């Protein structure tokens, strides 16, 4: 019923970009997990599963809009070389930051359901990123350019 005409073109593009970020995260988390042991490795496995699940949800959302989900690539160029456990953690943080930005794209859409989905996925990514980073940030997913420079310091 909700054919392609029901979704503005921006919706499909934003869903495709979130899917691409999730597919890259699935691939990247494989590398992350391979370089970790013990409970960090368990966290990496949980992250891998979460990203795979999110990718599946995005594929279903695209298909319900009559769009063909873009297939995952066989491999992805990683933003950093991972040879140690600390580099693996750094990669996990980068992957989650990219995921956050992709889901903020969904929050900009007009559909309330997609906004909510994007915001919940953003939260999940922010929680994982904070766990890897060991600290929290004020504006997960928002680039500095999206933030107004404060005109004056308020207490």
């Amino acid at each position: 019923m909700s054919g392609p005409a029901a979704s503005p073109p921006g919706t499909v593009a934003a869903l495709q970009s979130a899917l691409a970020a999730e597919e890259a995260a699935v691939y990247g988390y494989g590398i992350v997990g391979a370089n970790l042991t013990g409970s960090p490795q368990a966290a990496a496995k949980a992250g891998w599963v979460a990203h795979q699940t999110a990718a599946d949800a995005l594929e279903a959302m695209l298909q319900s809009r009559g769009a063909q989900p873009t297939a995952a690539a066989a491999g992805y160029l990683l933003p950093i070389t991972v040879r140690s456990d600390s580099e693996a953690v750094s990669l996990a943080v980068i992957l989650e930051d990219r995921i956050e930005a992709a889901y903020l794209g969904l929050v900009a859409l007009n559909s309330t359901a997609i906004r909510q989905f994007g915001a919940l996925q953003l939260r999940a990514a922010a929680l994982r990123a904070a766990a890897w980073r060991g600290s929290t940030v004020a504006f997960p997913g928002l680039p500095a350019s999206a933030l107004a420079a404060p005109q004056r310091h308020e207490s």
Partner: protein
Amino acid sequence: MAALPTRRVVLAAGATLPLAAMAGCGGVDVLAAPPRPAPDVEVLRSAIAAEQLMIARYAAVLRDGSGSARPAGGGSPATMSADLDRLLAPLLAQHKAHLAQLRSRLIVPAGSRAAGPPPSGHSPGTPTVPAAPAAAVAFLRAAEQAAATAMLNRLPHAPAPVAQLFASISASEATHVPVLDAALRAAG
């Protein structure tokens, strides 16, 4: 808190404000009914009020934690408050950053009663917070969780750029919960 003042305010989201609207604001007030703020302005105002409340709660806990009014017999108050300060300070700083960004999205016409920083009467004052450190942390944890959820509920009513800010702030507040959980475990 629900009864928002009917002040003339506009969102910064579009940034295409006709100058005439600003220039004419002095005379419009004499008309019979003051114009109601648009729903997106109200939702931004409620988000600002929510952040002000969170900041006031953190400030109250930090004040209690480092003050001398700690009840006796609570272990080692000095150490506990130093730990609590170290833990809570970054979270408080993030809430202040949230508030600054939310305020930056709201343009208040010059001459309006709401111009400038909100008067102190508009802020929630000093909220009551539990005195015992563990109870105070548990209180903040519950407040963070509720604030994160309330921020999500504002999404449908906000223009896209503001919705993105709300979503990001909600996510940030959600990440504060595990930090406070860890503090609770450390407090035993």
